[in-house]
């Protein structure tokens, strides 16, 4: 197999979701040459396009607000584990980014000319903007894509799956990837690289994300010498759709339904039950994600779950007119699935939705490996142990813009330095991929499903030492059987090769989640230990993960000590 070629740029952005697209636009606007790549289609293959509703920012549309209030709510939701500087950046700069998207024509809903904002759980006031109906994600993605298309200086290439970052003399100088349609290895040289690869929800059997969110960026960062943080904190969206089978709709859709209509969360006896776990709702949407996940899981464990093992969500007290007024054509889509909300309650259960952890960065989105930045959900630390509703899109936009700006500055600073050697595309990272041979001994599509079951069963909302140890053993056995040699021998698109490469990344990332979850012997936010219930003040610190000689090294890190990443 030969390489298709070697591309050279100044800023390489890996991942073309909300964060990646904004990073590319910002870097280019500051004079950098940009190459934006994605393993799927630009602006369509990730989580941004799937966002259902809320984007939190202190716009002051519904009522007076200030980013300091948003920050207070963010820190509270994070259960003491937010990196305060990163959380502040999201809340403070979020206002500008949401206004910028407004200027770019995204179409935030309005009430009498002012931003329409809903009051989401965990917020002290109405703060979340949105695009009707359930169109926030597509609108944000479309708006950024349109600007990209109008900026031809940014080179956009889809269907490139990055397999490794390249580091020379302690500097990240590019990446190697597989061009999926042709099956050839491609090398990309850059002066700055931004990881905007999203989260790791694909690791779980039931998840609300895209098939591309397997945590690629975490594996790339780790192998490049960067640090990961808070990997054990996976957010389970508590009321993910469970039954009856619903197609053509996102499993998170009940979030917007609850914002606009309230709704009642009921157990098998058709009683509201969240009060039993500390948060009475009385038909309104008040309970935060970690507490709701806890309540539903515990209620099911007590034998009071719905038929498929979740809770009932009922809007039966509402009439058709009210439903249509709130959700228009979505009601027809539900009808095509045989669902009439005035007649039937539906079943919901926790579903893997977002990852609070990720690549450790400082206030410049810099990882500690020179030239390597991260942005969006791929960043760890800004949301602590539990993310506040509505902060994800805001974080994508703010961190994307910031990483793009910082990368452009690095490029400007090094542009004059003629002595700086530029990577020519050679080396073991490229050879490993270009010289692949043989066919896989196993069905890697089936193995990915197996990994997803292991994670769902042992590393879900509730963990135990025994379960985590079992998961680690099973994952280690899978990694050993997979080996280190990617399959080759087929021209063109090879779906088995892609599965093999994905498994390689996913196994490493899953191992990180398991080890961190085993190490943290307390319960906090989204990480709940059945054998260590209750929050332990001594654990108000991060767990970082680095790789040394192929082994994971876990360390405790104090909150608010990002200077350790200075490079």
């Amino acid at each position, binding site marked *: 197999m030969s390489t298709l070629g070697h591309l050279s740029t100044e800023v390489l952005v890996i991942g073309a979701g909300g964060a990646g697209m904004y990073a590319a636009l910002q870097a280019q606007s500051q004079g950098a040459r940009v190459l934006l790549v994605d393993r799927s289609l630009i602006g369509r293959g990730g989580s941004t396009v799937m966002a259902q509703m809320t984007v939190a920012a202190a716009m002051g549309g519904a009522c007076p607000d200030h980013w300091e209030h948003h920050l207070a709510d963010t820190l509270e939701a994070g259960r003491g584990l937010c990196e305060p500087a990163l959380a502040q950046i999201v809340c403070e700069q979020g206002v500008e980014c949401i206004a910028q998207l407004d200027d770019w024509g995204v179409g935030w809903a309005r009430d009498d000319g002012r931003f329409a904002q809903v009051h989401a759980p965990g917020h002290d006031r109405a703060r979340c903007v949105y695009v009707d109906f359930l169109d926030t994600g597509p609108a944000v993605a479309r708006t950024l894509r349109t600007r990209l298309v109008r900026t031809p200086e940014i080179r956009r290439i889809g269907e490139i799956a990055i397999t490794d970052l390249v580091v020379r003399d302690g500097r990240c100088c590019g990446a190697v990837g597989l061009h999926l349609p042709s099956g050839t290895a491609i090398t990309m040289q850059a002066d700055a690289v931004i990881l905007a690869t999203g989260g790791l929800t694909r690791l779980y059997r039931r998840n609300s994300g895209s098939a591309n969110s397997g945590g690629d960026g975490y594996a790339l960062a780790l192998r490049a010498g960067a640090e990961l943080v808070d990997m054990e904190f996976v957010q389970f969206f508590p009321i993910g759709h469970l039954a009856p089978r619903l197609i053509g709709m996102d499993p998170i859709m009940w979030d917007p339904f609850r914002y606009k209509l309230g709704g009642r969360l009921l157990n098998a006896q058709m009683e509201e039950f969240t009060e039993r776990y500390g948060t009475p709702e009385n038909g309104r949407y008040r309970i935060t994600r970690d507490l709701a996940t806890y309540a539903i899981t515990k209620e099911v464990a007590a034998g009071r779950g719905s038929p498929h093992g979740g809770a009932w969500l009922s809007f039966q007290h509402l009439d058709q007119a009210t439903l249509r007024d709130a959700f228009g054509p979505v009601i027809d889509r539900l009808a095509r699935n*045989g669902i009439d909300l005035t007649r039937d309650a539906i079943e919901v259960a926790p579903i893997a939705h977002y990852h609070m952890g990720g690549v450790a960065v400082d206030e410049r989105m810099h990882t500690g490996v020179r030239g390597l930045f991260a942005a969006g959900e791929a960043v760890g630390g800004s949301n602590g142990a539990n993310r506040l509703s509505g902060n994800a899109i805001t974080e994508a936009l703010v961190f994307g813009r910031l990483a793009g700006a910082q990368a452009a500055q690095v490029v400007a600073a090094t542009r004059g330095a003629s002595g700086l050697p530029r990577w020519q595309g050679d080396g073991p990272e490229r050879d490993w991929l270009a010289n692949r041979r043989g066919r896989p001994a196993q069905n890697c*599509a089936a193995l990915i499903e197996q990994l997803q079951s292991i994670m769902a069963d042992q590393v879900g909302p509730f963990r135990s030492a025994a379960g985590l140890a079992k998961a680690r053993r099973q994952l280690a056995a899978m990694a050993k059987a997979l080996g280190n040699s990617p399959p080759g021998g087929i021209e063109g698109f090879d*779906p088995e090769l892609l599965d093999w490469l994905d498994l390689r990344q996913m196994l490493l990332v899953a191992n990180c989640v398991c080890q961190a979850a085993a190490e943290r012997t307390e319960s906090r936010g989204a990480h709940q230990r059945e054998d260590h219930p209750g929050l332990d003040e001594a654990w108000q610190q991060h767990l970082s993960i680095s790789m040394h000689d192929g082994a994971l090294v876990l360390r405790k890190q104090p909150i608010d000590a990002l200077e350790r990443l200075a490079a």
Partner: protein
Amino acid sequence: MTHTAILRIQRGGPGQTPAEQDFEVRFDPGQSLLDGLRQVRARHDPTLAFRFSCINANACKECMMKLDGKTVYACTARLEARVMRVAPLPNKPLVRDLLTQIAPGDEVLGAD
């Protein structure tokens, strides 16, 4: 109650004579063609190629293909207990099996 569908899928790469291959898929009512295709890869033949990202939400718009001659999204077309003929979009360059090149021309490698 579980039913069985026969997915009659057009296979092959660019320049090859296409050939149909049958796969039996067990399903619960309400499941989608995309659910069925993913089952084929995990249980029968992982070399089957098709495109998708968002799995369920019909947000990514990547899973377009022909079902019994009509253009559908695989994620919203329901499985039925009969022979279902599945083929790639005929008006897009074929990459392999059901996977076609649907990206804009300036977003593919080789565009300059």
